């Protein structure tokens, strides 16, 4: 590596740092990405708490699902809108013509966005604790931390995959807005996927976060048996495998997408 070159890690770090600084300068822009998960969680908690038979385990499962929705919402919007804003502001061409490959720049942004989503997750946990008096006793803390981290990576990898589509498409708004709620449904954030029709369950199994949220619930709630009928280790294995698959696929697609984008020369259209 010549002295003028910078490492991939430095690109990711710089991109992540810049996205974080942008957030702290103007934090109000977190609201559009967290409002839907927040309201959906609150409504779900009201619905569950109105039903007399619902146990605190169900409420805790909903709060954890809400946290997941928050992470997911921010990842989807963050990934989609970071490219969208580049396009809007006329900086997408500059970003693509920089010597650093786009994938590492996007990775930095997506990692920060998922981290930002975790803040929303924590916020929902606090609301659940204070308003709905959900007892947040984590049954297996080390596994809970591990599951959360693995799910975090899985979400980021999914965000990377999504960002590919948005580089090429002028329909970023369509993709991000259209995909948000269906993924809440398919990943079983608020209800187990067994409650879904079989054809949707097929999609659910292909999504890493489905396994991730199951692992999170299994580690947090003692005796949790409403989710997938597998062990927590299998959940984690599937989440990791999905993450690796998403990363490999996005790595390949980013190269192709960059080539197509440069060849077509229509990046700035919106």
């Amino acid at each position: 590596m010549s002295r003028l070159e910078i490492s991939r890690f430095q690109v990711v770090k710089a991109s992540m740092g810049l996205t974080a600084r942008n957030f702290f300068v103007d934090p109000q822009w977190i609201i559009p990405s967290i409002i839907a998960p927040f309201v959906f969680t609150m409504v779900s908690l009201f619905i569950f708490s109105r039903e007399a038979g619902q146990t605190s385990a169900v409420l805790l499962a909903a709060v954890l699902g809400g946290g997941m929705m928050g992470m997911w919402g921010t990842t989807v919007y963050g990934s989609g809108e970071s490219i969208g804003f580049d396009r809007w502001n006329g900086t997408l061409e500059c970003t693509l013509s920089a010597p650093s490959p786009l994938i590492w720049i996007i990775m930095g942004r997506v990692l920060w966005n998922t981290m930002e989503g975790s803040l929303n997750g924590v916020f929902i946990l606090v609301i659940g604790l204070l308003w709905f008096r959900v007892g947040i006793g984590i049954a297996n803390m080390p596994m809970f931390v591990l599951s959360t981290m693995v799910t975090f990576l899985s979400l980021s990898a999914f965000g990377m995959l999504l960002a590919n589509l948005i580089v090429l498409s002028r329909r970023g708004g369509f993709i991000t807005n259209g995909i948000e709620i269906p993924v809440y449904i398919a990943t079983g954030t608020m209800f187990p996927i067994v409650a879904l029709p079989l054809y949707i369950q097929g999609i659910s199994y292909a999504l890493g976060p489905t396994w991730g949220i199951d692992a999170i619930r299994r580690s947090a709630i003692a005796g949790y048996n409403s989710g997938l009928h597998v062990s927590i280790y299998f959940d984690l294995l599937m989440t990791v495998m999905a993450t690796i698959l998403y990363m490999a696929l996005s790595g390949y697609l980013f190269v192709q997408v960059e080539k197509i984008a440069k060849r077509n020369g229509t990046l700035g259209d919106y």
Partner: protein
Amino acid sequence: MGVSVRQWVLESYRSLLGSMKFGSKGTIIWDSWDMWVLEIAVLPLAQISFFYFLVGYAGYSPSMVEYVVVGNAVQTMTFSSVFAVANITSSDKWQGTLSSLLVTPANRASMIMGRAIYQIIMSLMISITGLLYGYFLFGVNFSSADYPMLALSLVLTSMSMISFGLLISTIGLYMRTALIVANIFLFIGLLVCGVNFPVSALPSWLQILSYAIPLTYGLQAIRGSIAGASAASLILPISQLLLTGIIVFGFALGLTNSFEKLSRKSGKMEVY
């Protein structure tokens, strides 16, 4: 030079007509074919499905499932009636046309309203699609429905919610953007307007907000119409819907002038 009332009305009408044509040709940024598909076909189905599966899992009765499906079918109209309308002034700001618009002598309210009017059609299409999903996919029973009352309730709800969108849009004249507030009010109805559970289940301090939003009364009238309630029993929610719609519209008109003055004074019209 004084302006006669007749002249003022004519000028306002002309501004309204002009901006209606302008609005229908796509000045509202979301107005592209994919957003139409998204708003009319995808979002209602996604939102209804989410809450349908949720109440099914929570073990609610079929009547409650129907309550939730109808509530969400109607609430999705806010994507158009509140969110799109609320962003009219902000989109002008982003595109750098707000200051040019505000130096024209045209009536501001007419200009904004003209661009909002075609969202009545859009929001009706969204809710009707949602109700059709309700009938064909989620088993909502329309056998007793009073269709003329249902149509009236839907139109009035749409118009009242557009007034609400206009109210938020005026914020964009002064604040950096109305987008944030628009996003909040896009979804807050799900929680406070009796979409998924009766308003009475909310804490009393939150119910104050419920009764300030026309959607709360609109939903009562629409559910009543679907259940085939007598016209007499629907008079109250429809009157409340009309009244809140008119009050909100009045506020929107009043605030348009006030916020314009404030933004001129602060010179921050183009800041976003």
